[in-house]
């Protein structure tokens, strides 16, 4: 774009030169994204917020006509008194408090191993670690269900012959069996994020470290880990959001195990409520979204403050 071009244009349109004008082109480029985004993402959220402020009243007897009546925050009051919702949230928080650190430490260790100078067959291992994530969630849960099954699993029957009788789907263990599946699925994914961050560390730092006499261990702990902390924070935030939305594995396991209630995780509580009480399900969803936002944003803010950045 030249001065000459602008002055020709301003002459043609009669506008005073120097005033920036937003043309049609950027809007046209954005529309293919914006239209579906607004229609299928923003609008449903607005609709859910709208429904969460209503409740059903009925006139004309038992099977009379139903009306949507504005109810203010009364649905949210019910949400806070909902014992099932509370226990499902506690359950996923306990789940996350154990599973997320285990998974991230494993991902970090694997990434460091892959990145170290001693690693061989890097590409093969990278693909192997990532493969579980590529398997569709329901299929993975189904296969793990068979692996955990007391009378169908070859692994369980081998353990039985050795004298162990683990009840992976019992009420004591089923939550941690699910945690195992989630860890198996996402460790490779998180490892890749951390590994990419490791690759971005400039080589000069390593040379300087070597000059200062740092060995492999010191390099890992004093150089690599501090430099990938932002990536670790990112994976932690993703994991927190994912944990609060835990759904696939419990639902699939509920078809084979007798130990999973219909309100096992918050998302299942919402699904349950949506069968008959759409407004209440909307209020639950909004509450869940706000809680997820607060938790993940809070965590981000906390780590940013600690990092001093």
């Amino acid at each position: 774009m030249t001065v000459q071009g602008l002055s020709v244009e301003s002459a043609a349109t009669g506008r005073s030169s120097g005033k920036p004008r937003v043309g049609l082109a950027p809007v046209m480029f954005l529309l293919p994204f914006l239209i579906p985004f607004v229609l299928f993402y923003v609008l449903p959220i607005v609709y859910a917020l709208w429904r969460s402020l209503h409740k059903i009243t009925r006139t004309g007897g038992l099977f009379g006509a139903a009306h949507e009546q504005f109810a203010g925050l009364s649905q949210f009051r019910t949400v806070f008194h909902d014992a099932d919702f509370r226990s499902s949230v506690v359950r996923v928080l306990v789940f996350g408090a154990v599973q997320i650190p285990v998974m991230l430490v494993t991902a970090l260790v694997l990434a460091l191993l892959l990145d170290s100078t001693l690693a061989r067959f890097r590409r093969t291992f990278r693909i192997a670690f990532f493969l579980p994530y590529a398997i569709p969630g329901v299929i993975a849960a189904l296969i793990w269900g068979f692996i955990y099954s007391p009378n169908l699993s070859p692994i369980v029957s081998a353990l039985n012959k050795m004298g162990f009788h683990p009840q992976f789907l019992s009420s004591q263990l089923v939550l941690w069996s699910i945690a195992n599946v989630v860890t198996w699925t996402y460790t490779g994914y998180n490892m890749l994020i951390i590994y990419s961050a490791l690759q971005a560390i400039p080589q000069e730092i390593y040379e300087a470290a070597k000059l200062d006499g740092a060995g492999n261990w010191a390099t890992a702990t004093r150089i690599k880990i501090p430099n990938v902390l932002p990536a670790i924070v990112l994976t932690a935030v993703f994991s927190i959001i994912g944990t609060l939305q835990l759904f696939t594995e419990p639902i699939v396991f509920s078809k084979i195990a007798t130990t999973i209630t219909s309100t096992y995780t918050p998302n299942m509580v919402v699904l349950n409520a949506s069968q008959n009480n759409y407004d209440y399900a909307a209020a639950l969803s909004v509450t869940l979204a706000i809680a997820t936002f607060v938790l993940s944003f809070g965590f981000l803010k906390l780590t940013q403050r600690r990092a001093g950045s």
Partner: protein
Amino acid sequence: MGRMRISGPHVVAVSSAAILALSLAACSSSSSSGGTSTGGSSGGGSSTGASAAGGSSSACQPSGGTVNLTFSTWVPGMDKVVAVWNKQNPDIQVKVNEVAAGNSGTYQNFTNALKAGTAPDLGQIEYDTLPNFRLQNGLKNIASCPGVADAKSAFVPWTWSQVDFNSSDGVYAIPQDSGPMALFYRKDIFDQLGLKAPTTWDEYASDAAKIHAADPQRYITFFSQSDPNWYTGLFWQAGAQLFNETANGVKVTISPNSDVDKVNSYWQGLIDKHLIATNLQGFSTELYKAWNDGDVVSWISAAWGYSTIRDNAPATSGKWAVAPMPQFTAGSSAAGNWGGSSTAVFSSSKHPAEAAKFAIWLNTNPQALTLENKLGGLYPAATAGLDLPSLQQGVPFYGNQPIFDVFKSASAGVNENFEWGPTMTDTYAALKDGIVNALSGKGTLDDATKSAQTKTVASLKAQGITVTQ
């Protein structure tokens, strides 16, 4: 500076706002305003102008001319049955939509379709879900449609009570099939242990103890956590009344209820003594393996269950037999019912008279019933259907026993007055969750029904329904 300055965030914000505004305007113009809209019900809302309290039956006249109907069903082979109708009725052509089972998403689809105005003319709806669709004003009252009043006598009485809600104020579906319950058992294993088919629940319990003592791996039966309507079938046999619907509201009597308590304490006893398997889920591969291996040797189930065992436990062919359901009182012949569907005409249908005519044919015509039984495994609700030639024969898988004779007498013993609640999914969910605790020893079946009572009442109140005492 000669460049056109494009403010990126500006563009996004302006475009998003424009699209949002346009969409909101479009949405709000199609829905009626404010809080008195009859279109804003919990899921249905396809009210046909008039306030439709209880489904006032407007005159149901044939439309004349050629009519095209759509019918959604999950019964296998239904398209072949409908092909017979289409050939014989060129002026009423029916198109079959094969859909997933009701509770696997089809009921949700019906609800959404009713709201969007795109529901089919006819749909398969199980008896326990009919009140829920009536609640959404989703069912057409076909009482005044030609042929419906006469059709009543063609059906087993208790099935008709399911579709006319105990003779309240209309007919909302045509019964299709039923699931009278009986006892499937491994005759060979019972014979081996010197046991006869138990006729009372006490005998069943002592048989359970003998069977488990003889082989600790073996259980007389299992307790399904995911089939609460199996358990309500047991309540049904015991004579329990869980719901009582009147014009004004619903009375919920799940707990306390002496008949329910009787069933609860019986099964709690079996659970406490570890005489039944508590870690097998209904219709699961683990269960089928247990059947095949002989680790589970009986199943209290409905007529349609005969194909479940046949298709999933092939190793045990010829070894099962069917006996009437054990009784609480020796000599009585009460039976419960598990499942069974109806063919309903949706309230948005433009041709209810033709739809009702088709529904009646589908569920009373002998040729249709034979095909539905053969291809779909359905046990007919029509009285003539119980005498179909194909149902009089011995079934090879069951040692050539004519098993449907047992189900015919069972059907005669099903209580006509049993009612379902308007929000059964919530009741079932509460029962299922309580059963999780009972099976893992953290609660009892009594706690499960108590919780089902509380949650059902709360669920009905959330629907704006009066819960009467």
